[in-house]
């Protein structure tokens, strides 16, 4: 063997029920196709912009599949579409945030146990610690999971949240998708010391680094962290090494800062291809399953695409709805000004 360390062979599904491996494959494939549809919607001018998760399907589906959607709660950023999909969030409502119909999205976050889409980098991470503390105060069974990236790991919010979680022993999983790039800044210029997981010790909790392209490794690491939290063992940091294959967003031009050869190398470690190989090797799935999975995924994506594409624009009056639960007279006056001077 030459000096280059042999990359891991890909997911080892032996510890996972075959039906779960198959469903994770289906969710990853659906997320991939929905991501392509969303990029197309941006090209057609239906979305003003879109942030692709291509390449990160295993990190998102593997972690989300480990959640107990009856008791746990996920706090996403703006790139966790595959987590939402896996948790059963209404995808038309989710994609509405990318069509800029409503900032947080048009799904019910409480009902879905999947927080509103959040554009503030690192912003929701302390929320996850608060939610988790709220769960442990009433000895509830639930755990929180906070999603953030290598860029967000530099934010004060994230450091403060991790310390709080360590101090309170809160049942929360800090799930960092280290996709190597925060817009134009590579991870070596973002994460001092090179590892987000290594910082966990400083905050009094275990830190785990996993191959983000390996859906089995991600699933098992997340499940172990959630079980630890449920058993009162407190928080965990999981750092999934993955890659942002597409530009930061449809408004980004990676030609200015990144080498296409690096993109091609990672594009060849496609999490979906790796999962398919593992399913075939383990004998968990045949070509009929793969064909059915693809047909089902395409149908789902077309329905979601048409659903969000045909969703009505918010009415102008929505400017004023939900500002308060108990609106003030001053705000009602302003709404009258809007109706008289601006309204359709």
């Amino acid at each position: 063997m030459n000096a280059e360390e042999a990359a891991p062979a890909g997911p080892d599904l032996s510890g996972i029920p075959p039906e779960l491996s198959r469903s994770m494959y289906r969710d990853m494939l659906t997320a991939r196709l929905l991501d392509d549809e969303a990029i197309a919607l941006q090209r057609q001018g239906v979305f003003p912009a879109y942030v692709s998760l291509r390449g990160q399907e295993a990190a998102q589906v593997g972690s989300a599949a480990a959640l107990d959607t009856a008791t746990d709660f996920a706090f996403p950023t703006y790139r966790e579409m595959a987590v939402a999909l896996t948790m059963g969030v209404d995808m038309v409502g989710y994609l509405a945030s990318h069509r800029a119909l409503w900032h947080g999205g048009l799904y019910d976050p409480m009902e879905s146990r999947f927080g509103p889409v959040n554009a503030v980098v690192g912003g929701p991470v302390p929320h996850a610690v608060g939610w988790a503390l709220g769960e442990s105060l009433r000895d509830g069974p639930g755990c929180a999971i906070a999603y953030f990236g290598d860029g967000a790991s530099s934010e004060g919010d994230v450091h403060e949240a991790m310390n709080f979680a360590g101090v309170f022993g809160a049942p929360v999983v800090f799930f960092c998708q280290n996709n190597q790039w925060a817009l134009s800044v590579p991870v070596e210029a973002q994460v001092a010391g090179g590892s987000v997981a290594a910082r966990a010790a400083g905050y009094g909790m275990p830190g785990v680094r996993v191959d983000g392209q390996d859906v089995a490794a991600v699933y098992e690491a997340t499940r172990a962290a959630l079980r630890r939290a449920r058993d009162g063992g407190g928080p965990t940091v999981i750092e999934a090494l993955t890659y942002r294959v597409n530009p930061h967003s449809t408004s980004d031009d990676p030609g200015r800062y990144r080498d296409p050869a690096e993109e091609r190398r990672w594009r060849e470690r496609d999490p979906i291809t790796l999962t398919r190989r593992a399913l075939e090797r383990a004998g968990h799935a045949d070509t009929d399953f793969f064909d059915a999975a693809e047909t089902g995924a395409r149908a789902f994506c077309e329905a979601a695409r048409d659903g969000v594409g045909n969703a009505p624009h918010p009415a102008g009056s929505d400017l004023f709805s939900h500002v308060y639960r108990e609106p003030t007279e001053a705000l009602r006056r302003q709404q009258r000004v809007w109706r008289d001077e601006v309204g359709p």
Partner: protein
Amino acid sequence: MDQTLLDATGEPALRYTVGGAEPSREPPVLLVHGFGSDFELNWARAGWVGALRNSGRRLVGVDLPGHGGSPRPHDPERYTPKALAALLARVLDAVGAPEADVVGYSMGSRLSWQLAVDFPGRVRRAVLGGFGPVDAFEDTDLEGLERGADGGRFGAVFAAAAALPGADTAALAACARGQASQVYSPSPAPDGVPLLFVAGERDGIAEGVESLAAALPAAEVLRLPRRDHRNAVSAQAFKSAATEFLARGRGLSG
């Protein structure tokens, strides 16, 4: 190269990778590189991964023993056409492909031919690049290769390969001896496997390929203008002819 094929003793035998379009309804395309090259140099850098993905095909790329990331045994018996063809068949088993299309270049074409002959039914269609019936080792001093003693047609190819950083001269010499030990013969020909031969106009190694193709039941030849043995492989005409030729297999078989 993220996958490893193990041999019967559980030792790594060969490194391979899977890529291209996902999902794809067609059988995968097996890419077999030439002497002294590897998957990255022969195919990825020459633009074949993108070309196959854009035509909706999945691909399986290998680094042959003695090359790239694969082990480098020094025993010529591990490098005979029959031995390497058997290894390629096991790669197809590992990726769960009962049938595949194959694209080879130079020595890779010789091995693709051998695979089609030794394992009937495993190769649906084959594109054999930079290949001809003439025995490349005819005027080669096989024992003096490492010392660079031999001139001849193959000597220059060997010298260039040995000069590559990370090359294992002894392994390459063993590979040459293994290949030379089973001289190519046009018969038996692969049964029921449509063939497309592609070579640069100025590729001496492909001398006689037209007469070879004429003697075969289902074979075509494409010559690439102004191209030679070394720079034919990245030609757009080669890629488009190959993807079009392989696409003709759609729906015909199994």
